[in-house]
């Protein structure tokens, strides 16, 4: 049986709910409405259902695998393995992570770890620029990112805790979304309403940072290959120290 679900986390969770309800965990395939079916198998369209999705989330939380499932989902394309992973967790009554030799478990863990490491990269590489609101408004720190996966939710907690009294705007330029923090609440917004002038990266401290960055390197230890291993080129267009002014 092929389960066709909406291309969203809620859509995916609704499909998970339906597969378990149908007792089809031994014979199922998940596909999004965007995907193309081969037409060989019987199909069932799953309508997204918030209540079903919430029930699945609660169960995942009680099994201690919610974050794992969410991050693996963000990786994309491993939905079938995630469902098998959940099935193993249910029969075990907890995390099946020690069964890494199992292909489905290994697939989910690898996907989740890749998303996790992408998120960690942005704890390292996000570069804020100071923008003043017009008409004597306050200061807001703005950063642009182009992450491979949709990691805004995952990094929100880190930045909100770190800057309790500093308004932040982190714009995912690839997906047209932004993390907005006003020192009281944070939420994920869509970009158009938040369009602001391009970040210029000009300023006293930006220049000082670029100069410092050159000075701390020990010339006789120069090793650009190693540097690139740690800061791949794709991150550099949004990093102050790699922008040439």
């Amino acid at each position, binding site marked *: 049986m092929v389960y066709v679900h909406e291309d969203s986390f809620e859509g995916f969770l609704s499909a998970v709910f339906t597969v378990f309800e149908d007792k089809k965990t031994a014979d199922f395939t998940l596909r999004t409405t965007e995907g193309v079916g081969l037409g060989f198998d019987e199909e069932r369209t799953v309508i997204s259902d918030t209540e079903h999705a919430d029930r699945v989330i609660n169960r995942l939380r009680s099994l201690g695998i919610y974050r794992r499932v969410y991050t693996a989902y963000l990786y994309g394309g491993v939905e079938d393995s995630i469902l098998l992973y959940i099935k193993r967790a249910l029969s075990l009554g907890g995390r099946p992570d020690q069964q890494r030799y199992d292909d489905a478990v290994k697939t989910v863990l690898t996907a989740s770890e890749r998303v996790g490491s992408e998120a960690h990269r942005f704890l390292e590489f996000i570069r804020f620029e100071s923008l003043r609101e017009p008409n004597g408004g306050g200061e807001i720190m703005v950063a642009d990112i182009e992450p491979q996966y949709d990691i805004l939710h995952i990094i929100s907690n880190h930045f909100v805790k*770190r800057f*309790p009294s500093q308004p932040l705007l982190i714009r995912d330029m690839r997906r047209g979304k932004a993390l907005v923090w006003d020192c009281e609440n944070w939420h994920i917004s869509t970009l158009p309403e938040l369009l602001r002038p391009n970040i210029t990266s000009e300023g006293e401290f930006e220049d000082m940072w670029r*100069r410092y960055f050159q000075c*701390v390197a*020990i010339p006789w230890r120069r090793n650009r290959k190693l540097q690139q291993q740690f800061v791949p080129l794709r991150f550099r267009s949004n990093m102050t120290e790699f922008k040439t002014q």
Partner: protein
Amino acid sequence: MELSDKLAILGEAARYDASCSSSGSGRQGRRGGIGNAHMAGICHSWAEDGRCISLLKILMSNACIYNCAYCANRCTANTPRATFTPEEIADITVAFYKRNYIEGLFLSSGVIKGPDYTMELMYKSLLILRTERGFCGYIHVKVIPGTSPEIVNRIGMLADRVSVNVELPAAERLALLAPQKNRENIIAPMEEIRSLKLQNAEERKQFKTAPIFAPAGQSTQMIVGATPDSDAKILRLSSALYKRYSMKRVYFSAYVPVGSHPTLPPPETKAPLLREHRLYQADWLMRFYGFDAEELVEANDNLESDLDPKCSWALRHMDMFPVEINTADYSELLRVPGIGVVSAKRIVAARRIRSLEHSDLKKLGIVMKRASAFITCKGRFESRLSFGSSLLRAFLSEAGPYDGQMSLPEFASVPMITEG
């Protein structure tokens, strides 16, 4: 002098300090303030030399009155001098921090007038940061030998980590090369930090809200290759420092000739990068793999240069292999080349569910190229290299002449590894 020029001079002057870690402290942020500390530490960039930048590493001043022969900032060196004011340090730190360039501040200094005078200025910088600016990010302070205990105590109450550099592996060389320093006034503040930390822990048992003295503990650094000391001597000293002072880290810094002195290597000498790399590998084995300094060097004076110290040990102890993956203790697994801390833990967890085959191991993250000659699964040995053959050594060695550009991935990423 412009602030930017000062930063360039004092950033360059601080770059030979190897310590960069921002880990080991869980300092919380607070409303109205800025920053917090991340337990595992975060690197924010990597410079052109492939070393990570986690903290704003600067000197308070490089106008040093000392004349240590191995140091680029000695008073007789011909180099531009600058001194920050405490306010300037606070300004740059906060401005960089809020842009997410850094995890915090690493503050060291040359000696202005005397140790206490300099350390008071550094204390003032910390006080401004922690109180006026509400800064809760990471701070590491380098203590100058000879500083009064009372100042060390005040600094430790504001900093996350404090450290004193051992400088050279042999005490007698120190007297020769750094006439104003001696082993006693280096050891004294280490002892002081250790006892203040113990005393603070006692106080915190009674008053849970009492501030923590240097939550990320102390570390130290020594220069490798400036003196003829052997690896064995360096590792024994490191081991003693870890045990006696509960050091979180001992850093090694390959010496590059910056001055001339009859007992120092001549100016054309290349810095011993490979040696530094092997020492760090050995250091890792002592801290995370249960190896003792004596086991790593045994009868030799120095570590082998073309084999990592773990392979080198394994080849000297072939009688202890092969190890059966399904029954070996965790500590035995850790000693197998190609098995690290993470993969050893995965093996122990996975084999509780079912016994493991060779085909499972790659999925658990074991480097089979290295490990296969040292292990069996359910009694089966699957290496093509017959056990104990002389080919094995050739296979494991990192061949080719060293060109000084070897990558040091494990060590450049030091701050990401949780300590303690």
